[in-house]
């Protein structure tokens, strides 16, 4: 399926990646190529096949619902580009 520039723009928006208008046609072309390659999957008869969810048939373990760590605010914030007064700071979200 061919991806047009409108679809490429929409996908970039959904992925929260800024793509300049001038670069959209090239991106659309590359996405079309990759999706075209995926079309080969349509040749396979998948009737009655369940989509694979787990690689190995094992039950995922549940851990006890207890607090195992905490009180590490400085470590949590250490790598933040902008941390203030114990919080992550971001541009204004609500007017």
């Amino acid at each position: 399926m061919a991806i047009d520039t409108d679809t490429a723009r929409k996908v970039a928006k959904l992925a929260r990646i800024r793509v300049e208008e001038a670069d959209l046609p090239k991106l659309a072309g590359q996405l079309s190529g990759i999706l075209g390659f995926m079309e080969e999957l349509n040749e396979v008869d998948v009737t009655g096949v369940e989509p694979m969810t787990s690689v190995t048939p094992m039950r995922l373990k549940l851990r006890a619902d207890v607090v195992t760590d905490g009180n590490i605010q400085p470590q949590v914030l250490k790598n933040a580009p902008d941390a203030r007064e114990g919080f992550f700071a971001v541009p204004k979200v609500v007017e």
Partner: protein
Amino acid sequence: MSANTWTIAAARDALRKGEISAVDLTMSCMTAMDAGDDLNAFVHKTPEIALDQARAADQRIKAGDAPAMCGIPLGIKDLFCTKGVASQAGSNILKGFKPEYESTVTSKLFDAGAVMLGKLNMDEFAMGSSNETSAYGNAVSPWRRQGSDVALTPGGSSGGSAAAVAADLCLAATGTDTGGSIRQPAAFTGIVGIKPTYGRVSRWGVVAFASSLDQAGPMTKSVRDAAIMLQAMCGHDPKDSTSADIPVPDFEAALTGDIRGKVIGIPKEYRMDGMPEEIEALWQTGIAMMRDAGAEVRDISLPHTKYALPAYYVIAPAEASSNLARYDGVRYGHRAKLAAGDGITEMYEKTRAEGFGAEVQRRIMVGTYVLSAGFYDAYYNRARKVRALIKRDFETVFAEGIDAILTPATPSAAFGLGEMSDADPIQMYLNDVFTVTVNLAGLPGISVPVGLDAQGLPLGLQLIGRPWDEAELLKCAHVLEHRAGFVAKAEKWW
């Protein structure tokens, strides 16, 4: 031979006998590491940590408490979070990121006494097959074509790991493998690389690419070393819910050299159109070696092989688009400079456009598309159904008595850096054609160097094992290695 060229097994024995100290062994590797800057394999060096760890290892060895990995100098792929040490996953979006925690794999290795020399180059977020998508620039293979000084790729995504081990900058390295990222670079550089069964090694603290496919494993100079190092990396981890709570056997003890009566499957679907004759000849050589060693060789069919690559390139980007959503410029890593009036959406979009390279952006967008409303069933669910069929192919042949499967590791020898830059992305993806099936089915696979091509470059074969049976897989690989007698080393130019 200077100590940096040793295998883990040789170094372990020498350390225990007191023939060398861990500090001297580490210094030998650090000298080689510093002389190897042209390979661009080590991207963050940690000499202080290495010497501290080496001194502690010497104490343990002296006290008689020395696990096999004690005092062994390693390189660590940049994908592993290492406490207080840059861990960027080869990406600018994690520039400056120094984790406040240690990955389970590196914790286990350090608990066993291993020494970290530094962090190793890799494709950005492990997305690539040539180490050319790295924010650090290309890692360079120590190998060159005969009579040529063209710089070659060490493969990817664990390209720095492969280059560092092949060039003897360290004794061994950690790698990770989502579609072939341990086995392909190992094959390109004439070393051994094993991807264990999904769930064998904890993924905690390893930067996630595609969570249902990612596994860490060792990249080493011999199969014995792979067995020793894998042993130290394996085991159940409560912090990774997909890590298996099953016993880890003694892998080194499995290397008996006896594979008489083992049944080795040769899948006809791995004979690809346009595959170079040298690869076919190498495969036949490997088949003859297994037969000579007393194994029974049987032709098998894995009918859905052809669909593994397109299924992988739906599933891996889908998982990546979700995993990489966390890089938003809020909690760690890069944040774009904002213009007046920019809100939070602009912050996300600019940060991710600046921080991610072209291939990563492409894969996130492909993943976003195949997961989006209206296409989820057509692409993502169909790919997951095909994945179930690929896994079933393997289950069928194993149920019919196949012990291991022998295939080529890569469709060619290493190519030149930049040679694929104009090719469309699919051409690069074809590098993984023999390896992705193993990730999709969650199986263990190992790449063993078997020969050189006409230009003097290493070629490897892959063995694929039954789930959780790394011990038998390593046993077969050990026999193949022994019969192949691969001893070639890259001629030093760096």
